């Protein structure tokens, strides 16, 4: 079970590091509301492909790092990401055989779920923002998903072959 684990761990970790960097990289003001949830997208992909290695635990740790990096309440992204990971693991076999269009729709729903958790926690904590602004990352994330999935697919085959 663990013979090829070592080889494939590093590229995936690098994907997550790159996603975290993109999540904190400076962007022009007009583009900030449309910054895709890079970390969430990366997590959905790798949880779907390797659910035994990456599932709710990794999602929670990455979420905690994201909380510190973005200065949000500790546990907010952790909770949202582990929920996304949980749903993804539950449906990973179906997700793998979906055609691109259906998969993009599922990712859209997962991103919306993720933003909803963030929105909910913000609301409970009394941090107000227009509800509309939460849709930006969901839309841009769904648009970028097919390209990103293709890229990660090439990473995956390179690692194997």
């Amino acid at each position: 079970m663990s013979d090829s684990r070592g080889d494939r761990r590093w590229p995936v970790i690098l994907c997550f590091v790159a996603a975290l960097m993109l999540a904190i990289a400076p962007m022009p003001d007009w583009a900030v509301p449309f910054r895709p949830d890079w970390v969430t997208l990366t997590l959905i992909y790798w949880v779907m492909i390797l659910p035994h290695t990456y599932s709710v635990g990794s999602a929670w740790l990455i979420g905690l790092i994201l909380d510190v990096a973005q200065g949000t309440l500790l546990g907010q992204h952790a909770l949202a990401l582990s929920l996304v990971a949980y749903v993804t693991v539950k449906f990973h076999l179906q997700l793998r055989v979906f055609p691109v269009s259906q998969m993009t729709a599922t990712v859209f729903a997962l991103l919306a779920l993720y933003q909803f958790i963030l929105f909910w926690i913000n609301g409970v904590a009394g941090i107000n923002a227009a509800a509309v602004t939460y849709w930006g990352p969901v839309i841009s994330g769904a648009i970028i998903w097919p390209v990103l999935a293709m890229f990660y697919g090439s990473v995956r085959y390179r690692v194997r072959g």
Partner: protein
Amino acid sequence: MVAGKPDSHRHSSKIPALGLRFLLLAGLSVVLLIVDHRENHLDALRKTIGATVYPLRVLVDAPVSAWRWIGEATSSRSDLRLENSRLNTERLLTQARLQRYAALEAENIRLRAMLDATSGMTSQVRVAEIMSVSANPFRHVVVVDKGTRDNVFDGQAMVDANGVVGQIIEAELLSAQGLLISDPDHALPVEVNRNGLRTIAVGTGQFDRLDLPFLPNNADVEEGDLLVTSGLGGAFPPGYPVATVDSVTRVPQESFSVVTARPAAKLDQVREIMLVWTNEAESQSPQETTAQGSADE
């Protein structure tokens, strides 16, 4: 290409105790959220994780720094000469202004001595560079490249050449997070420079606007009034310019007028900020800051 073949050597698709693990982690998140929201006991944890985020920030900042370095290294001689002469004139102007300031300061000390008041505070500043700005559009948080190693402390004031920028909310070892005055969570005790009227300036989430929500309809405030820090919150040294009032709307049936102000500092353009150490500020507890919970003075 997205729907790849399933892992060939993993026969079982079942993850053991997945639901249980998720419930445990979700519970842990909720506990963390509550503890973090109610009180600030998680600083140590935040700092530990922050240490792992620091290299990421440096990596993200590297292309920008490299680009600036290249720009500086390749700027032509004539450009440099132009800039040099411009800076020279600027220095002369500043010096002239400083001379007047020195005279005023001397006069101030003399008058204070006559009044037998406490002497004005001496303040020290240090330039820090902004490494990154918050990725979260609802929070105006910046990260600067000085940390507790340089004696940066929580609640420390950040200013730029034009006015107050914000305050440090979390000092890590090598970097610190600062909350801008335009963050919706930030409230700052100010006074109108013209007549000393005290009020609170609250951030709005827009870089070019602050609200003054606690001014009654009969308050003596006009467009163009300069607001300066009053120093009453304990976090900021008094007398730094904060904003200029740019609109006053009095609604007869409401008890407060709608007053907005434009920050003096260019909050969305600053790259270097100054951290201020005052002799008084360091001895006071940083808990007295106005960052948490808007306007509870």
